């Protein structure tokens, strides 16, 4: 919402600077985002008169103007269509500086010398956009200083209104707030109220629910022309483009009172009547913006005998709009039901200054005021005469809102002491009326403009706001929870372990990119889909973290090939549910993806590419950190992973997740070339369930004080033999074994291509004594023999 300081000052006398006023407005909840300062740059600007304007010999759109100033006649090339002989203009002579990089120089434009520039108001910072050069009044003297035509410096507050304060979508509303903020008197502006004339207009309301109040009056004898300069300036400062006096006046009243008005050309209204009614299904409406709309019965229209002439509260129609030929105008000032206007605006994708105000509701009692003000301005500035009776069709004055306010709430909720008499003053200053009060409570009558004040706590906020938030003390309360069972699981510890393992956290959007899913040939039928996506690429929610993380790898490898990438992500994943009572499922996954050299190559360590064992080792370490050292990998046939290396994590009878190599065809599909990429994903809910099953409580286990003996046991076995099972067996087969690990593994010479050689490192020990060599020999032999028999393998 834009509001100029000068307009506000018509209601409030203040000597404060614009900056101070901005600070006060902000402190009262009307945040001034920007304070615009509009003024003309002065030095070098002079009045000129165009003596002649001829087409530029080499450019259709340019004119070469002979411009007479008080001292000389200049040839100036100008591109504005409105440059014409006889026009008084503002000339920036050579040497004028209009901005940091905008100095006027003598120049040659398409071969013609130009000695200055004819300025538009936008170029002078007087408005945002200009249609052409600034046309000075015809009686401007060549000696007149330019500031004479600019007016004084203008400050415009750009205020961010909260959505509850639609009453302040008006100068009047803001002025009232400012008056309260500055503890100043709010001046009452008087406009003439012309006596009613004979002659009722044909105004009727069929859709009564949607049209609580419809007022109208006829103004005759109007001459449509440009509105006065000061009005044009003011509209431009507030972001509205001046059009003609009639339209400008309706906009001016809208800005000042917050009441949207509409002016119909009375003679073009078929049957000289207006009816507020529901649109008919499929009814066409020729909109002022040039569009042809197809209406629905939910839309409210103003119609004449021929059809709709306005989409009520949103936009007028072309057929009955004000034109230069208009002589009689019917001014509408109404109150339309907010939800209707809101729905219509959304349905037809039209947002106007008018609909913005109706959507939030206009004040019942300001409707007629605005009508009178508009008629007054039309009589003053468009040569009109107030004709007809003042038509007022309404459903009756709405019930007034009365709120009971308990004074004790001020101390209890705001922790400040304010005497009841001061509280009452605050309410009065806001336009409320204290109908009744005793020492405990008051009954407050809410003005129609303040639709946001409905309950005691709404009034409490007004007291806090006006008293000042900075006046409320600071205190720290006792913070406690009756129970902690709703606490979220703590993820900090395991996030730290991933950091220790060298993984970098990434974050991807919750949507699965349709283009990537298509490239990866993922079936999207099980994905939860969005009914109203913003783009065709983001229509489904991700089911897993794979595609997003692969995109991250691709992005980084495009920037630097061959670099090490180790990423992790944890986040929600979604799917369609099978049961009707749970149509959508939401889970939490952890993903790891890595590629590239394991470490930066060093002169003592050769470079080695990250491989499956690195990933499985990292994931095993991660799970061990969560108390799941017993988690195992089983081969699996997950089609999303490469058949060369894929498995799933299991623990305590639960499947925790998967891990493997990314398929070559997927890398190719995303143009990730020359790299092996590995991916692992855990379902964190399954991980938590496994932790529950395994048991989270730890128990100390005593260990032996006698030294252990380590031996290497080498076996030869078939190439596809399950080495892990052998290690597992060695670990458990004899109580003397305290540790058994796979220490070496190879295929090929000297055991041959069909077999593999495996060395297990086995540690023997006892809680009671140190084993002698002979004892270890005996245990080892027993172990080797039984293992050889059981797995059909041979000692090497």
């Amino acid at each position: 919402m834009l509001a100029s300081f000068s307009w506000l000052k018509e209601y409030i006398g203040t000597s404060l600077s614009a900056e101070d006023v901005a600070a006060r407005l902000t402190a009262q909840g009307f945040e001034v985002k920007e304070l615009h300062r509009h003024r003309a740059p002065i030095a070098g600007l002079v009045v000129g008169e165009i003596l002649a304007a001829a087409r530029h010999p080499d450019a259709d759109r340019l004119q070469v103007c002979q411009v007479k100033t008080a001292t000389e006649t200049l040839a100036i090339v100008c591109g504005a269509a409105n440059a014409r002989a006889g026009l008084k203009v503002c000339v920036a002579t050579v040497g004028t500086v209009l901005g940091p990089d905008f100095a006027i120089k003598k120049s040659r434009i398409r071969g013609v010398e130009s000695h200055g520039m004819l300025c538009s108001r936008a170029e002078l910072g007087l408005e945002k956009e200009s249609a052409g050069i600034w046309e000075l009044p015809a009686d401007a003297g060549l000696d007149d200083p330019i500031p004479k035509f600019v007016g004084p410096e203008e400050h415009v507050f750009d205020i961010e209104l909260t959505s509850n304060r639609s009453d302040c979508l008006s100068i009047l509303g803001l002025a009232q707030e400012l008056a309260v903020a500055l503890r100043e008197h709010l001046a009452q502006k008087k406009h003439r109220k012309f006596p009613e004339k004979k002659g009722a207009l044909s105004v009727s309301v069929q859709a009564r629910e949607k049209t609580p109040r419809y007022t109208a009056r006829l103004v005759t004898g109007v001459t449509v022309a440009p509105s006065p300069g000061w009005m044009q300036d003011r509209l431009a400062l507030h972001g509205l483009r001046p059009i003609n006096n009639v339209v400008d006046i309706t906009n001016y009243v809208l800005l000042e009172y917050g009441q949207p008005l509409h002016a119909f050309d009375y003679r073009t209204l078929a049957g000289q009547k207006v009816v507020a009614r529901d649109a008919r299904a499929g009814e066409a409406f020729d909109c002022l913006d040039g569009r042809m709309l197809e209406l629905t019965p939910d839309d409210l229209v103003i119609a004449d005998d021929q059809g709709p002439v306005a989409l009520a509260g949103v936009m007028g129609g072309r057929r009955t709009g004000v034109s230069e030929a208009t002589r009689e105008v019917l001014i509408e000032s109404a109150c339309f039901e907010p939800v209707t206007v809101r729905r219509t605006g959304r349905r037809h994708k039209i947002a106007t200054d008018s609909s913005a105000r109706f959507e939030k509701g206009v004040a019942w009692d300001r409707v007629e005021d605005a009508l009178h003000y508009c008629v007054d301005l039309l009589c003053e500035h468009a040569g009109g005469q107030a004709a007809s009776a003042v038509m007022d069709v309404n459903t009756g004055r709405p019930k007034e809102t009365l709120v009971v306010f308990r004074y004790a709430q001020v101390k209890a909720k705001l922790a400040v002491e304010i005497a009841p008499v001061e509280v009452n003053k605050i309410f009065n200053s806001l336009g409320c009326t204290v109908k009744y009060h005793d020492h405990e409570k008051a009954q407050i009558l809410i003005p129609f403009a303040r639709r946001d004040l409905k309950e005691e706590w709404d009034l409490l906020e007004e007291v806090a706001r006006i008293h000042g938030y900075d006046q409320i003390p600071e205190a720290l309360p006792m913070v406690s929870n009756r129970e902690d069972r709703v606490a979220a699981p703590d993820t900090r510890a395991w996030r730290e372990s991933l950091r220790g393992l060298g993984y970098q956290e990434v974050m991807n959007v919750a949507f699965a990119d349709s283009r990537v899913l298509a490239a990866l040939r993922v079936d999207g039928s099980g994905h939860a889909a969005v009914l109203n996506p913003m783009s065709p690429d983001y229509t489904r929610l991700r089911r897993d973290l794979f595609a997003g993380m692969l995109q991250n790898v691709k992005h980084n490898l495009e920037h630097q090939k061959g670099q090490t990438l180790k990423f992790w992500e944890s986040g929600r994943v979604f799917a369609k549910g099978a049961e009707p009572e749970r149509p959508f499922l939401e889970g939490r996954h952890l993903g790891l993806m890595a590629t590239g050299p394991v470490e930066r190559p060093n002169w003592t360590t050769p470079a080695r590419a990250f491989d499956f064992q690195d990933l499985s080792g990292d994931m095993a370490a991660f799970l061990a950190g969560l108390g799941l050292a017993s988690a195992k990998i089983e081969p699996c046939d997950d089609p999303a992973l490469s058949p060369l290396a894929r498995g799933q994590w299991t623990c305590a009878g639960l499947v925790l997740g998967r891990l493997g190599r990314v398929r070559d065809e997927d890398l190719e599909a995303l143009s990730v070339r020359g790299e092996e990429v590995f991916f692992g994903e855990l379902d964190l809910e399954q991980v938590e369930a496994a932790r529950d099953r395994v048991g989270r409580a730890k128990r100390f286990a005593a260990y032996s004080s006698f030294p252990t003996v380590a031996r290497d046991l080498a076996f030869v076995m078939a190439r596809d033999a399950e080495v892990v099972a052998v290690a597992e067996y060695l670990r458990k087969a004899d109580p003397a074994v305290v540790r058994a690990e796979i220490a070496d593994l190879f295929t090929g010479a000297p055991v041959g291509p069909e077999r593999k050689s495996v060395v297990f490192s086995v540690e023997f020990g006892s809680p009671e004594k140190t084993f002698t060599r002979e004892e270890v020999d005996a245990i080892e032999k027993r172990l080797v023999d039984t293992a050889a028999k059981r797995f059909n393998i041979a000692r090497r």
Partner: protein
Amino acid sequence: MSDPNTDELREQIQAEIPAAPDGKALEELRIRFLGKKGVLADLVSRIAQVPPEERKAFGKTANDLKALAGELLDARAGQLEAQRRAEALSTSKVDVRLPGRRHTLGTAHPITQVRDEILSAFNRMGFLTVDGPEIETDYYNFEALNIPPEHPARDGQDSFYLAPGTLLRTQTSTVQIRVMEQVKPPLAIVSAGRVFRRDTLDATHAFMFHQIEGLLVAEQVSFAHLKGILLKVGRDLFGAGAALRFAPDFFPFTEPSCQLCVNFPLADGRSRWLEVLGAGLVNPVVLKGVGIDPEKYSGLAFGMGVERIAMCRWGIQDIRLFTENDKRFLDQF
């Protein structure tokens, strides 16, 4: 009295041991002189052949020779070790300035870091961290928060719908309702999570971002408590000397409502007030809706955007960087 054998032996010991060229030769000499089957053991074994009156002297001589050999062996070993260390200094000295073998620690995403920091600040005061779903119903996302259908506050929160009445949450305030339905006051919770709005992606808008939400419901909670808590956290996050101010604001589920602004310096020497947080006393309508008596209990609630705070903190100009996941970005945090 001297025995030509023992004299010769003494000479050998005195000459050969100090001349041993290296540890291996020295070890050989030790075995030769002091070994179980060494020269001196052999000498001692011959004591039986010595006439009884000479045995005492013979024994002393043999023991002296043993002691001498032992001393010389130790001395020479010491010399050789000192020599080896001296040589190593010139041949094996490590250039300590060379970089070590790199093990790189991972990184936490900047959003996670800011989120953790904010949650910790509230946790220290006694707020419990809780969680809630991202797929929500219209009831939890809007209605229970005093935002009925057609309420203008819905305009700023254009939602992604999965089905009529089911949407991706537009605010983490949903968690407030879910917690108040489950546990009775006093309660003090904070929750961090993702929210979704149909905003067109640009440098300062994303259709997915993170919020942190907090709620305290107890007896006699006042606006002064809201100020106390938020100013403490504000100083935790932005420094003890941070310029902070409250201004009125509007949220359907709090009344009175406020925003907390922080004064951030700009590059050109000026500064700008930036809203970092919205808050207020819980609207009694919301409390009634979850069966909490607003005459007995009152509440305060607050919410903030994590991206916005991270952007201010680190001077990040473009919100899209957070989900681009460029390593050059991630490496900086």
